[in-house]
């Protein structure tokens, strides 16, 4: 079944300018690589405010965006879209197979 | 907007006229191609130099018979990534023999300068910090060019020939690169 991509919960994300690494804006206005430390906006208006804050802290990052997330009962955040899941947790396969590094 | 030539910042003596503005009796004026076409005779009859500002979609060919009557042609970059004016510049300089000021207007950034100089631009409107320094160094940023263009530089392929071709608008290459012998190569 199609998921609700709009989502109610939003976090602000970007790529770090210096190395391209995926980062999220935390409550202190710092960019963190940990999705679980991201500041969460709980409605559309909150999202707009979050994006404003992200822009204000945007000097060292590029490609700012809001990411729709879900939150489970223990407060663990999970992006809604596959793209954002991959941005948050990396490749979905082993980049180099074990055999490929065997030769030396 | 500050105006730069390779010598540095210069005063802009040109009055840019909108199409509905009255043409002053004298002094340098810059008009659109539409106005130039519509009022060519009157503009030529007045005292003072004439310049034409082209949109990058205007056909430069329409100035073909008039290049010797113009002292300024301004070519526009609506966005720095829109490169049509480079072709207009090369046609004006190389094919039509235009020798007056060729000015880049609009979104003009320092990193475009090596390309603009090679295409024949010699004046630039820009408000980017550091533009004057970049312009001063832009012609020597690359000691090597691979193509003939409108800046008179000899492409590497000709420097490599045992008897380099020297044409009127191509000076000899760097020291020791060319013989003084003039050879024609299939021109």
């Amino acid at each position, binding site marked *: 079944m199609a998921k609700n991509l709009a989502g109610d919960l939003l976090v602000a994300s970007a790529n770090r300018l*210096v*190395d391209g690494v995926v980062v999220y804006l935390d409550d202190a206005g710092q960019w963190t690589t940990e999705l679980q430390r991201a500041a969460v906006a709980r409605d559309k208006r909150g999202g707009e405010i979050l994006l404003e804050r992200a822009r204000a802290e945007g000097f060292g990052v590029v490609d700012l965006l809001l990411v729709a997330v879900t939150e489970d009962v223990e407060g663990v955040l999970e992006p809604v879209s596959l793209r954002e899941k991959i941005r948050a947790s990396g490749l979905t396969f082993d980049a180099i197979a074990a055999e490929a*590094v*065997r030769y030396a | 907007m500050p105006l730069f030539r390779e010598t540095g910042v210069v005063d802009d003596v040109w009055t840019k006229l909108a199409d509905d503005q009255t043409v002053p009796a004298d002094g340098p004026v810059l008009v659109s191609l539409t106005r130039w076409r519509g009022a060519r005779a009157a503009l030529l009859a007045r005292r003072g130099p004439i310049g034409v500002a082209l949109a990058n979609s205007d056909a430069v060919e329409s100035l073909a018979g008039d290049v010797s009557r113009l002292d300024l042609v301004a070519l526009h970059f609506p966005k720095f990534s829109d490169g049509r004016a480079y072709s207009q510049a090369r046609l004006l300089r190389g094919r039509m023999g235009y020798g007056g000021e060729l000015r880049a207007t609009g979104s003009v950034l320092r990193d475009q300068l090596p390309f603009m100089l090679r295409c024949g631009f010699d004046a630039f409107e820009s408000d980017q910090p550091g533009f004057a320094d970049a312009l001063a160094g832009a012609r020597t940023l690359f000691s090597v060019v691979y193509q003939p263009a409108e800046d008179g530089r000899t492409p590497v392929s000709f420097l490599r020939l045992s008897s380099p071709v020297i044409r009127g608008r191509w000076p000899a290459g760097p020291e020791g690169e060319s013989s003084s012998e003039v050879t024609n190569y299939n021109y």
Partner: protein
Amino acid sequence: MPDTYFYRYDRYDRALLSERIAQFRDQVRRRLAGELTEEQFKPLRLTNGLYLQLHAYMLRIAIPYGTLSSRQLRKLAEIARKYDRGYGHFTTRQNLQLNWIKLEDAPDAVAALAEVDMHSIQTSGNVIRNVTADHFAGAAIDEIEDPRIWCEIVRQWSTLHPEFSFLPRKFKIAITGSPNDRAAVRVHDIGLRLWCNERRKVGFEVIVGGGLGRTPMIGKTLREFLPKDELLAYLEATLRVYNRYGRRDNLYKSRIKILVHEIGVEKMREDVEAEYAEMKDGALKLPAETIEAIARQFAPPPLPHRPAAVAEVEALKLSEPNFALWLKSNVASHRMAGYRIVTASLKPAGAPPGDASAAQMEGVADIADSYSQGEIRVSHEQNLVLPHVAVEDLPAVWRALGQLGFAEANLGKITDIIACPGLDYCALANARSIPVAQRLSRHFAEIARQHDIGDLKIKISGCINACGHHHVGHIGILGVDKNGVELYQLSLGGDVDFGKTALGTILGPAVAADKVVEAVDSLVATYLENRGEGERFVDTFRRIGLQPFKERVYAAV
């Protein structure tokens, strides 16, 4: 280090590279210092081959005309280790992509490349891109003339071209020197085909407006025969028409194919010929001496006489079925008797197609030094080619490639899959490509079965930009996103063989990710049941049409 038998940089080429690196270093410094906005910086980094992907920057390194020396390949391995995560991805356009580059390291990485006369200039951005060629160039038995001579001439002319550095969109040129096109010249912005006319003159057929992507089109002949020394004048004329009149209002309509489509090839020809008439016999006409000087550098290596029939090879064919199959699929005729062209498959079962670790790159470089004149090629099918292998050395090369995992006898077979990086890496993708390729290649891993199925090209793209060339796959697979779910649209009957360039026909509704293998299995089963004598998958499809395939697939999934 052995001598190279292709273009060697001179002090001019090296001076330009080092000046370009200094310029890029300064641009990166200004960006990091906040003097340049991202909007201003983006085209600067792109024209130095630096993209921003999902997780990091990606550096796309040009391998001009797909030709590498062993020394260059070792340097690529070193750069992959030092500045990346120890592996790289060979692309369909004879580039190598490193996926984990830091912006702050990028100038050092390109400086390291320059140590072996390589660069990443114009591998992205709205410029003339790395010029590609037949990967068998200089070794192929059917070759009229080595296309790499012309690629190098075009490479130089197009590098930092002052007029064409802000084109409406990217511009890709491919050149073939053989009647059997291995460079896909009809699906490029400009394709050039060397041929010999009735008067025994060799010149170019100039093909314009081909391309895949969102609006796939097969290129049209702009000029039947162009004298070779007029190549640059004609290209400059064509690019000028495109630069002036190509659309800039819509990203998806800005390739030259749309211009040709909208004004018609006749009008395009008229405009280009008018422009060319002004330039003909001018400064861009290539002096014979210039052409000869470059051609001399591509002179074939002095291959010593080696026996054409070797008992050990014949014996191994009998004792090792996989070797026999490998000879059939991965070894091609060479212009010299006693030699063969060997393709190392970068598609071992279950591996990301086209990927090689630094260790594997070094391994291939060693093999090239021992057995292939120190030369390696990169094919647009994302494999590596050893162009000059003696028949006598084939067993040793097969064993050595086997140690690297690159001796899979699957060239042109169902697991020789072309795949783009897809959603795992790419910021543009809608769906993943590599995991789909992995599942397919594991499912069809058995080599004997692959040979029974025969030639079958699967090409996978993760979005409609079609980097995986799905339009021209015998089976094309296009990943789409439907409300956050990955679906895959199948198409049949695409082809890029010369004279038969064809775009695939969509089979029907897209299938779920976990049904792709079953769907392809059904397509193969339909083919096996219906194939006539000597028919390839695509031949059977052409004969019996879409319907039998469609019925079987949608009954199964």
